[in-house]
């Protein structure tokens, strides 16, 4: 293992986050606060509680997931897309590093940033609503698995993308809608049966449900299924990444 290379990539990526701290940290915090004002106060005035949890508190796990998913994906995607775009990727390709090391460096940094952000959002949320975490260890596990899995997805996206539009479209037009429709701000049990069925095809449902369970012990699907689904995504993405590096897809000519 070229540990020094992993450390170099990781450090480089983290330094990039500090340079763009407004975009990577401040923006999500501001938008989260806005959600609390709009959803928590306005809608919360009508829906006082869901399954015994106050509406403001109910949406916290969903909000964290929303940020975690979009930031993991766009951060990791940008991290590998940019060197490809400006051409500095030559150095990575000519360095004595294996693909596993490259992935650990980039995905590790993106996931770390997401985790940090998740923590900050939880902190912000605690200012608005009383938070209660029933299973902290599970909560951390969900945070970690989600960050890593979706950073991997972002990494794949960054390699696949051949323009900035694709880079932005996927988080904006796929991840965000899936998160909104995945029960972030409501329980899917509130939907008519037909739409409940449709919603189960949305992968984000499993993430939000499991994550929310670690807070309030209420879930749309069982925790085991949630963990299982995340693991399946993780394995699929690992498979795609190793295929990319084996074939040099969109990296080597």
């Amino acid at each position: 293992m070229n540990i020094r290379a992993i450390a170099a990539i990781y450090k480089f990526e983290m330094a990039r986050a500090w340079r763009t701290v407004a975009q990577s940290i401040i923006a999500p915090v501001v938008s989260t606060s806005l959600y609390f004002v709009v959803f928590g106060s306005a809608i919360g005035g009508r829906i006082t509680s869901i399954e015994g949890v106050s509406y403001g508190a109910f949406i916290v796990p969903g909000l964290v997931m929303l940020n975690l998913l979009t930031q993991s994906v766009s951060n990791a995607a940008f991290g590998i897309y940019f060197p490809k775009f400006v051409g500095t990727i030559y150095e990575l390709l000519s360095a004595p590093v294996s693909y596993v090391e490259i992935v650990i460096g980039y995905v590790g940094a993106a996931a770390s940033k997401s985790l940090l952000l998740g923590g900050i959002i939880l902190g912000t949320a605690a200012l608005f609503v009383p938070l209660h975490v029933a299973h902290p260890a599970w909560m951390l596990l969900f945070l970690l698995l989600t960050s890593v899995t979706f950073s991997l997805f972002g990494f794949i996206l960054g390699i696949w993308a051949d323009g900035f539009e694709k880079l932005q479209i996927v988080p904006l037009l796929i991840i965000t809608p899936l998160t909104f429709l995945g029960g972030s701000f409501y329980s899917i049990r509130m939907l008519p049966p037909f739409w409940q069925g449709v919603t189960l095809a949305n992968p984000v449902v499993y993430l939000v449900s499991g994550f929310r369970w670690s807070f309030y012990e209420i879930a749309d699907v069982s925790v085991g299924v949630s963990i299982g689904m995340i693991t399946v995504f993780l394995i699929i993405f690992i498979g795609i990444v190793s295929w990319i590096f084996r074939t040099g897809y969109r990296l080597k000519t």
Partner: protein
Amino acid sequence: MDAIIDIQDLSKTYASGFQALKDVNLQIRKGEIFALLGPNGAGKTTLIGVVCGIVNPTQGRVTVAGHDIIQDYRMTRSMIGLVPQELTTDAFETVWNTVSFSRGLFGKPASPQHVSKVLDELSLLPRKHSRIRTLSGGMKRRVMIAKALAHEPEILFLDEPTAGVDVELRKDMWATVRELKQSGVTIILTTHYINEAEAMADRVGVINRGELILVEEKTALMQKMGKKQLMLHLQNPIDTIPPRLAAYELEKNASGDELTYTYDTKSERTGITALLKDLSDAGIRFNDLQTRQSSLEEIFVNLVSSRS
């Protein structure tokens, strides 16, 4: 022969179907400066790309210090430093950080001393905390050289290192390259400028349309390429060249008003003085004259056409 890089039957066909390298065989000797010459699109960058791991070869085998570049990529890549043709840098990083990053990426422990030394040699030390985007083009190129030297490579590839670099800096750069050679580094560079190869290289390779058409010691090549032409514009056109001038092997143009004499600048006697005297004796007068050196492009064309 002590070959540090051994390229055997190397071919590369791009996904577009274009064959950029055709059966290239080349051995680079340890410690030499090898200049790869060739017109645009000849395949120089592609050849370097294969050795450095950026381009997947279609066929053939490359070893560096006896290690296969694909199976033993860690070994071979850690021995190589690459300065690519394009100026590509992390615009927002500082000089110091980007060079230190390169060192880490190639698996070397952090060494501020070495980074300082490299930056100093390239006159970049005063700018070490500058963001790269605030540097001039020539400085950026030196940053790229510094990055390539950060991990103390034994082999250095310089893909057109002097493009966009002013004369002064070019001299500095060549001085740096010579020092590297002194310290035992093997250097492979590409250039369009024959005089650059002449000044620097121990051996020269010429590549054209993906084929390596010539590899020679520089001194031998320079003799071949050292031909010059003297063009004489005549006052009165002539039909035939007088037999007494046959020894000069003059060429006459179609309209008969220009004679061309080819001579060797490297030989002791160019024969120009004698020619001018004989012309005057033959009553041939001229109202203008000029000399020119065959350009590299022409030499390529000659080399290629003489082979087909």
